[in-house]
C-alpha cells in the first residue's frame, strides 16, 4: 500500500525539527510528495499542476514557516485546498415549480447508470415525490428489465417501449402527465465519449426532455481519462452535477476531483454500496482525506455504528478502561468488528496507523485462530487468564489446534493491552499535556449520554488520542482543534 502523505511529510520534516525555519527546498520536497500522492490517486495531471501551484503559494507564505509543526500544517493546507476544490456550492436538488422535474443520467458503459437511476428514484420517493423511471437504454440487452426489477423493489413505475431512445424519452413526458408523476429520471445507454453518433443521440434525448438536472455517472476507479470523458459529456449535455459510483471499493477517487475542476459542477451524490439505499449526499472533506490516503474516519465510524451493539459496546468500553475487560468481551467485540469488514480494510481507514502496522498483511484466518484459542478456554480461564498454567495451556492449544506458545502469546498481549488501557483510563495523564483534557472527554464520551451536543471536533480528538495512547502512535494527520 501507499505511504500516507503524513508519513512522507514526517520523513521530510522530521530532520528539520528544532531547526526552526523551513527553506524553500524543504517546501519543494514536500510539494513533490504531494504531487505524487495526487497522481497516485488518479487526479488528472493538469489538475495536479494547478492544485500544487495553489498549495505552493500558501506554503511559501509565512503560514508554513510560522507553524509549530510544519508537516501537520502542510497536510492541513493540502486538505483544505482539496476540500475547497471538491466542494464549492453543495448540490441542492430543487424540484420544478411546474412539474415534472426531469433528470437525465448519462455516462460510460459500466459506470452504474441504471442502478443509480433507481437509487436516485428511491431517494426522491423518500422525499415524497412520485417518480417515474424511464428506460431509454435500449442498447444493452437487459437494461430495461434490470430497471424494472429495481423499480419493483422500490415500488416506482418504469416506462419504456421498444422504439428508439429519443422516442421513449418523448413518450415518457406524456406518460408522466397521464399518470401524475412529478419527477422523471431517464436512464440512458452507456456510451463512449468519442462515439459521435451516440453522443448525438443523447443530445437529442436531452433536447426532447429539456432536463432540469443532467448527471454524469462516473466510476470512482476511473483514471486520467476522467477529464476527457467529463469534458465531452459536458460539451454535449451541459452537466449539472456528477454521481460518483463504486466508492465502496478502495479507489481513492481522484477522478472526482478532476471532474469537478474541469467542468466546475459539484459532485452531487456518491454511491457507496450495492444496496439501493447505499447512496448519499457527497462529502467533500471525506473524499479529500481519502484522496490523500489518510484514512476515512467518518466512514469508519459509520460502519462501527452500524455493526456494534451500542449498549454492549459501551459496557465493553467501560470495562476496557477499568481494566475488567475479559477475553469473553474480546471475543464478543471481535465478532462485531468482523461485521465491519476485513481487518485489513478497517486498518486502512484508521488515520495515523504507522506504516509498520499497515504493512502487516492480516488474514482473517489469523483472526479466526485467535478466536479458536479463546473458544477453547473455559469460562473461568476467559475471565481470568492468569490461572492458565502449563497444563491448561496444553489443553487449550490442543483444543484449538495451535501451539502452546500461541496461547501464551495471546495471554501476554492481552494482559499488556489491559495494562495499557487501564493506564489510559485511570492513571495520571502522561506528560503530554493534552492527555488529561482528552481523557476527560473520552470518559464523558464513553459513558454519559446526557450532555449537550458535543462539538464535532471532540470525537475525532478522542479517536486520535485513543490511538495515540494505545499504540504510542503519532497522529499528525488530522487537523486537530487544539493544534495551534
Amino acid at each position, binding site marked *: 500500500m501507499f505511504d500516507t502523505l503524513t508519513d512522507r511529510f514526517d520523513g521530510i520534516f522530521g530532520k528539520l525539527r528544532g531547526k526552526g525555519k523551513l527553506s524553500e527546498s524543504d517546501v519543494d520536497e514536500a510539494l513533490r510528495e504531494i504531487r505524487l500522492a495526487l497522481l497516485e490517486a488518479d487526479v488528472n495531471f493538469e489538475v495536479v499542476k494547478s492544485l500544487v501551484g495553489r498549495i505552493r503559494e500558501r506554503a511559501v507564505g509565512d503560514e508554513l514557516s510560522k507553524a509549530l509543526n510544519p508537516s501537520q500544517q502542510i497536510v492541513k493546507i493540502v486538505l483544505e485546498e482539496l476540500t475547497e476544490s471538491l466542494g464549492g456550492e453543495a448540490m441542492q436538488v430543487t424540484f420544478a415549480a411546474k412539474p415534472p422535474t426531469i433528470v437525465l443520467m448519462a455516462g460510460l458503459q459500466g459506470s452504474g447508470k441504471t442502478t443509480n437511476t433507481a437509487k436516485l428514484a428511491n431517494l426522491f420517493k423518500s422525499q415524497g415525490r412520485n417518480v417515474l423511471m424511464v428506460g431509454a437504454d435500449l442498447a444493452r440487452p437487459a437494461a430495461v428489465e434490470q430497471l424494472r426489477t429495481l423499480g419493483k423493489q422500490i415500488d416506482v413505475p418504469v416506462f419504456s417501449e421498444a422504439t428508439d431512445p429519443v422516442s421513449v424519452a418523448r413518450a415518457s413526458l406524456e406518460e408522466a402527465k397521464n399518470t401524475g408523476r412529478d419527477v422523471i429520471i431517464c436512464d440512458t445507454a452507456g456510451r463512449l465519449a468519442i462515439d459521435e453518433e451516440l453522443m448525438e443521440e443523447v443530445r437529442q434525448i436531452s433536447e426532447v426532455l429539456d432536463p432540469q438536472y443532467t448527471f454524469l455517472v462516473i466510476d470512482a476507479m476511473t483514471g486520467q481519462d476522467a477529464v476527457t470523458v467529463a469534458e465531452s459529456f459536458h460539451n454535449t449535455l451541459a452537466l449539472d452535477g456528477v454521481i460518483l459510483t463504486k466508492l465502496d471499493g478502495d479507489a481513492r477517487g481522484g477522478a472526482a476531483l478532476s471532474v469537478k475542476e474541469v467542468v466546475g459542477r459539484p459532485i452531487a451524490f456518491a454511491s457507496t454500496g450495492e444496496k439501493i439505499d447505499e447512496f448519499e449526499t457527497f462529502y467533500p472533506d471525506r473524499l479529500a482525506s481519502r484522496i490523500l490516503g489518510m484514512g476515512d474516519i467518518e466512514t469508519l465510524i459509520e460502519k462501527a455504528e452500524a455493526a456494534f451493539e451500542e449498549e454492549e459496546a459501551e459496557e465493553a468500553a467501560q470495562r476496557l478502561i477499568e481494566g475488567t475487560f475479559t477475553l469473553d468481551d474480546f471475543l464478543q467485540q471481535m465478532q462485531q468488528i468482523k461485521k465491519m469488514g476485513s481487518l485489513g480494510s478497517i486498518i486502512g481507514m484508521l488515520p495515523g496507523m504507522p506504516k509498520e502496522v499497515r504493512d502487516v498483511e492480516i488474514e482473517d484466518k489469523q483472526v479466526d485462530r485467535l478466536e479458536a484459542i479463546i473458544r477453547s478456554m473455559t469460562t473461568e480461564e476467559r475471565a481470568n487468564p492468569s490461572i492458565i498454567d502449563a497444563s491448561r495451556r496444553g489443553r487449550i492449544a490442543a483444543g484449538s489446534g495451535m501451539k502452546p506458545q500461541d496461547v501464551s*502469546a495471546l495471554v501476554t498481549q492481552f494482559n499488556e493491552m489491559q495494562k495499557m488501557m487501564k493506564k489510559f483510563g485511570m492513571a495520571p495523564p502522561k506528560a503530554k499535556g493534552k492527555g488529561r483534557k482528552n481523557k476527560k472527554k473520552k470518559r464523558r464520551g464513553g459513558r454519559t449520554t446526557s450532555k449537550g451536543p458535543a462539538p464535532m471536533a*471532540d470525537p475525532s480528538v478522542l479517536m486520535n488520542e485513543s490511538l495515540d495512547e494505545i499504540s504510542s502512535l503519532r497522529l499528525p494527520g488530522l487537523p486537530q482543534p487544539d493544534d495551534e
Partner: protein
Amino acid sequence: MDPVLLIVLIVLAVLVVGGTGFALLRGRGTDHMPTLDPKVTDEADSILTKPKAKEPVTVEGADTGVDVDAPVEVEDEPLVEVEPEPEAKPATFRERLGKARTTMSGYLSSVISRGDVNAETWDELEEALIRADVGIKSTTEILETVRTKADDEGVKDGAALIELVKDEMKSRLGGQDLTLAEGGDPSVWLFVGVNGVGKTTTIGKIASREVANGRKITLAAGDTFRAAAAEQLTMWAERAGADIVRGAEGGDPSSVIFDAVESAAANGAEIVLADTAGRLHTKTNLMNELSKVRRVAEKGAGTVTETLLVIDATTGQNGLIQARQFTEAADLTGVVLTKLDGSAKGGIVVAVQNELGIPVKLVGLGEGQHDLIEFNADDFVDALFDTN
C-alpha cells in the same frame, strides 16, 4: 502471529473505546445520512445485492444496439445483421487507438521538436506516461532505465529518446506466451473482475471465436447475482453456437460452474468459459466466494487452465490493487483489457504486468464479435507513441 495479535488488540481497543464514544456523541448531535427507507424484503435484498452499481456485463454490448441487444424475441434477425460486419478485418491497435494517439502525441511532439534532451524533456515523457495511467512507479522505473541507457549510448535527441522509451516498454510488455492454455479435460477458463468491466461480453466474444475455430464450447453462467446476466450470456451462447449451463438466480456460483464442467465433460466440450459476478476486490466475502469457485471448478473432471482478470481501460491506479487482490484470491494467469476503443489509454496494464508479472493476453477494441484480439506489445506501444 504476534504482530497480528497486537494489531487486532489495538484496533479492537480503538474501535471499542473510541468508536463507542464517538458513536454516542454523534448519535446525539448529528444524525448521519438520511437512511433511505431500507425496508427491502429479504428477497429483494438478495437480488439487489448484485445488480449493484454497475451493469457490468452488458456494458460493451451497449453499443449500437444492433448486436447483443436485440430483444430476445427478435433474436434471429439481429444475428443475421451482425454477421456481415465481421467481414471487416479484425481491428488493429493502430486504427483503434486513434484518440489515444492524438492525446499522447501532443506531449511527444514537443519532445521531438525541441531536439535536445533536457530536464523538460524528461518531465514531458513522464507526463505522457502518467496521463496514459501507467502510474508513477512503473513510469519512474521505465524512465530510469531509459536514462541510464541514454547516457550509455550518448543519446541527445528527443526522437531517439522516444525510441528508447518505446523499446523499453516493448521489452517489458513483450515476450509473453499469450495463448490461452488448454490441457484440461475439459479446460476451464474463468473470468473475474470488478463490476462493469465487460466480463460477460468478453466471454461471448471468445465463445464466438473459439467455436469458429472448430472448438466445442460450454458457457457457465456463474453470475447468479445480476438479474439478467444469465439471459445475456444465453444470447451469446445462441449466437456463438455454444452450450450453456445456467443455475437458479441467486444460486451458488460454484455449483453452477461445477455443473457446467460436468456437462462439458459428458458432452465432449473442450473448453468451459466460466462467467462470474462482478465484485469489488475489497469485499472479503465475495473474494472468498471467488476462491471457492476456483477450487470447486476443479473438483470434477476439469482443470482451470486460465483465470483472466477483465480490466476496463478507463481504470486508474486502482487497477493494480484489483489485480493484486484478484490474483491472491484466484491465481490470475492473464488480463483482458476492455474498452480500449474509447479515449482511455489502458496504461494500467503496463503497471500490472510490470509490477505483478501478469501479462495482458487479450484486448477489446470495439463492440463487434471480432473486436477482441490478442494483445501485441509492439503494436500497443507503437500505437501509443505514434506521432502521426
